[in-house]
């Protein structure tokens, strides 16, 4: 049975609607940030992200004339506890930062990534979405790797599809 990455739950080409719920949303144009707070739940299809506060940092002029498309999101920060659930995958940590520029996700603070019986714990989960690699690191600055996720060259005999 093909296990999928916890982050596999929110695919870009799924056309299922995305729902974001929260107790409050503050849009602070001066800081160019929109903050969802209080029981924040983001869902799409079978995937779900839960956190206490989700801050969206964007760029682009704050004038009425700036067409919406000229604005883009720079960075997303979820803190106060983050849970990402997709199918039987689950990733949890204190904070989750998704940086659009570097196309990476970093989860820190008591990170656990689990799928069925398999659980891996560490201090930091680093997911590089361009290279499709992710790794869990433990130990303050030693960054010693506890569990390394390596792209497998596909099942023997089957040509790697990319």
């Amino acid at each position, binding site marked *: 049975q093909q296990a999928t990455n916890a982050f596999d739950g929110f*695919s*870009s080409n799924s056309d299922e609607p*995305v729902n974001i*719920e929260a107790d409050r949303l503050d849009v602070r144009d001066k800081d160019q940030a929109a903050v969802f707070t209080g029981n924040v739940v983001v869902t799409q299809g079978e995937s779900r992200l839960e956190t206490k506060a989700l801050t969206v940092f*964007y760029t682009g002029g704050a004038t009425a004339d700036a067409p919406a498309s000229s604005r883009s999101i720079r960075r997303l920060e979820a803190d106060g506890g983050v849970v990402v659930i997709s199918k039987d995958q689950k990733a949890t940590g204190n904070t989750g930062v998704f940086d659009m520029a570097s196309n990476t*996700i970093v989860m820190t603070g008591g990170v656990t990534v689990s799928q069925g019986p398999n659980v891996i714990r560490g201090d930091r989960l680093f997911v590089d979405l361009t290279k499709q690699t992710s790794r869990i690191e433990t130990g303050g600055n030693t960054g010693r790797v506890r*569990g390394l996720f390596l792209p497998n060259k596909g099942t023997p005999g089957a040509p790697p599809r990319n």
Partner: protein
Amino acid sequence: MNDLAIAFDGHAENRLTAFSAARRHSRLVGLLRVGVPGLALLLTAGFLLTSFLDIRSLGDPVFDQSTSAISGSTITMVEPRLTGYNSQRRPYEVIASRAEQDIAAPQKIDLDQLAARMQLEGDGWARLESSRGFFDNEGQTLRLNKDVSVTSNTGYHATMNSADVDLEAGRVTSNEPVAVTFDAGDLKADRMEIRDGGDLIIFQGRVRMKIEPSKTSAKGAT
């Protein structure tokens, strides 16, 4: 779907084949990328709402009304029109089907079928409507108390039961459910408040935002 094997501390036997990343970007990225245009549209929308607040900061608007009649102490103006420019030199126009003013209290004006239209960049425009309005020139407040809506040609549409506009403080509050629709989705909340002339927009109470991915890609280009 390629398969990721996990080498755990390098020992082959406790290799865990636990995770595999989809070939395409991870789904979390996709979700956030989908959410982006929707939210961006919302941010522009918020600003549209507040560009009307700039009205207070311009010179003296041109006020003309086609006909007016006085009965007792009430002046009734039919189809009054107010035009002027806001602080960004954007022309705007405020019309009403009827406006009533009491001579004894000229600062207060009752408005029916109020509609304010604001010119934006290029051929953009935004429109604020309310079937009933109550303007207090002294307090610089405008109470819109029935079927309030704000629309723009960028596909944004917000509706509220009522809204209190404090022109002086640049604040709009609506303590009743607010619904905002934009071409890529919609947002609902129990209450909304806009402060500092639009620098801060607060939605509170069961905030629910829905974004249709299929629509964002098409619209993303505009």
